[in-house]
């Protein structure tokens, strides 16, 4: 199969216009020693039908029919059909970054609406057009905080998603940042301890609900950071923000997170989008694209990429980030999903997740699978003791068709028997009963 149009006659005519005898001659600037003198050693071309069969075979080797209670940052939420319909509109799907606004009002307005939705949910003033995922936006936020404060220490709570912490630590040396972790105490972060650690720090990153699914006392954590004159950065789940307070309302300088929960399939980890929203005074330090409202030559409202002097294509080595390609299509999926939900639907989505998760926690507890952090309020995810190595419990449950959760021992010493169980609105009471049975 090929997606090429040129006929032999076309090629001859084009070569004649160029004034060369062969296509090979077009490559004469490449030194002979650097030419690849043979055919690429890859499998033969496939027709579309063969391709479909080959990929179906690969997809068939993945196990996706176990009931999913796995979360830990990526969640099995429902994606509405309208999301797919919108994303398959070729004018949106196959466009690039809207450098030419007259050709791109559709994407520009969609991003402006996305920015508005993210600001509404997080209670912040400004949002960029998206970052790569929920981990990289954390590194971005550190870069912003470093330059805004002139300080070079970042504090991250241990109850923050381990992959977020890992990415921040990977980026930190290049940024000239030192990363300090504050341990959790019984599943949550102690504000006083956080305040001490935050002395002299540029920013404090905490997660709400945290990695264990527990509700931190987020306003107190933000206050502790502010007391120490470090920027509070909340890593939040968009789906929780119908029921949980917006970070902007409790003094955060930035709100960030993984957007997959809104509008995106799990897709083995991507592509998804990270969101990054901030107080208005940080707008010139934000990484990535930002869309702004303006008027056209006739005085009609329109949208453009704005404040581009922050970005690498203009500011080069002094840019706020090197990011170019972002995740606009996935952020659009989030916007469509949130638009379908509306404020009431988002609230109900949070309520349903909480109700089902509470039921699961209670039933598991009754079956002898006690919560790891028994006195803490949770959202849609919680940790339980399995009373044996968690991977063994997981394996036995999988044999009964249930993917029961995430073994916390992967990231936390001393929690080898603990399983992190996530319950979305897609799970039913019957499925939860099967989970209990599978783990008992």
């Amino acid at each position, binding site marked *: 199969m090929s997606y090429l149009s040129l006929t032999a006659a076309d090629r001859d005519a084009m070569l004649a216009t160029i004034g060369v005898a062969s296509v090979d001659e077009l490559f004469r600037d490449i030194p002979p020693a650097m030419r690849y003198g043979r055919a690429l050693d890859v499998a033969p071309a496939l027709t579309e039908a063969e391709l479909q069969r080959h990929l179906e075979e690969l997809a068939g080797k993945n196990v996706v029919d176990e009931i999913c209670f796995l979360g830990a940052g990526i969640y099995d939420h429902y994606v509405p059909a309208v999301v797919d319909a919108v994303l398959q509109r070729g004018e949106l799907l196959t466009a690039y970054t809207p450098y030419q606004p007259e050709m791109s009002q559709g994407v520009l307005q969609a991003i402006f609406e996305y920015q508005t939705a993210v600001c509404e949910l997080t209670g912040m003033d400004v949002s960029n057009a998206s970052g790569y995922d929920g981990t990289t936006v954390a590194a971005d936020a550190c870069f912003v905080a470093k330059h805004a404060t002139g300080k070079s220490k970042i504090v991250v709570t241990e109850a923050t998603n381990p992959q977020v912490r890992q990415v921040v630590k990977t980026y930190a040396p290049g940024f000239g940042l030192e990363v300090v972790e504050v341990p959790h105490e019984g599943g949550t972060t102690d504000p006083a301890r956080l305040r001490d650690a935050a002395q002299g720090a540029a920013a404090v990153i905490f997660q709400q609900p945290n990695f264990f699914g527990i509700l931190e006392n987020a306003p107190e954590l933000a206050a502790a950071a502010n007391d120490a004159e470090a920027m509070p950065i909340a890593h939040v789940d968009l789906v929780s923000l119908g029921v949980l307070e917006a970070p902007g309302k409790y003094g955060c300088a930035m709100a960030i997170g993984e957007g997959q929960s809104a509008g995106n399939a799990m897709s083995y980890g991507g592509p998804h989008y990270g969101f990054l929203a901030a107080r208005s005074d940080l707008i*010139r330090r934000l990484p990535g694209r930002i869309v702004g409202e303006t008027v056209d030559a006739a005085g009609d409202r329109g949208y453009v990429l*704005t404040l*581009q*002097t922050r970005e690498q294509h*203009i*500011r080069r080595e*002094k840019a706020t980030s090197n990011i170019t390609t972002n995740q606009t299509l996935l952020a659009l999926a989030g916007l469509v999903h949130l638009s379908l939900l509306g404020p009431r639907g988002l609230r109900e989505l949070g309520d349903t997740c909480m109700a089902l998760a509470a039921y699961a926690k209670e039933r598991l507890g009754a079956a002898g699978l006690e919560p790891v952090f028994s006195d803490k309020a949770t959202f849609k995810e919680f940790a339980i003791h399995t009373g044996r190595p968690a991977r063994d419990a997981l394996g036995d449950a999988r044999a009964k068709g249930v993917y029961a959760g995430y073994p916390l021992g992967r990231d936390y010493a001393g929690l080898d028997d603990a399983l992190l169980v996530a319950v979305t609105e897609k799970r039913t009471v019957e499925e939860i009963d099967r989970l209990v049975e599978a783990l008992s």
Partner: protein
Amino acid sequence: MASSESYPDDLLYHPEHDWARIEGDEAVLGVTWYAQDALGELVHYEPPDVGATIGKNSSYGEVESVKAVSDLVSPLSGEVLEVNQKVVDAPETVNEDPYGDGWLIRIRLANPDEQTQLLDLEAYRKVLEEA
């Protein structure tokens, strides 16, 4: 809005298209007509802090249009006495009046002898011809 091209003969110039007006042991600094024309309408001025020390030939701030950003290169060393708030609030003032209302900072000269190294109008015009 845009001013017409001019280069006053009572100023000293720096080849990076900055000017200085010497007033006793102080100087007022700005950018030339050529610089503002090359940048286009300014939308942002990032000034230094009052009290900051700036060095000859080094950057003391930035101005931005929608498509470009430019370092402000100081023609002279000194201490920042005053920032032109009018330009902070309305950066296009530089486009309208680069040598008057569009001045950028006032400094106290650290080394008045440095002014002998700057260009007079005739020398600056040669720089412009080559640009």
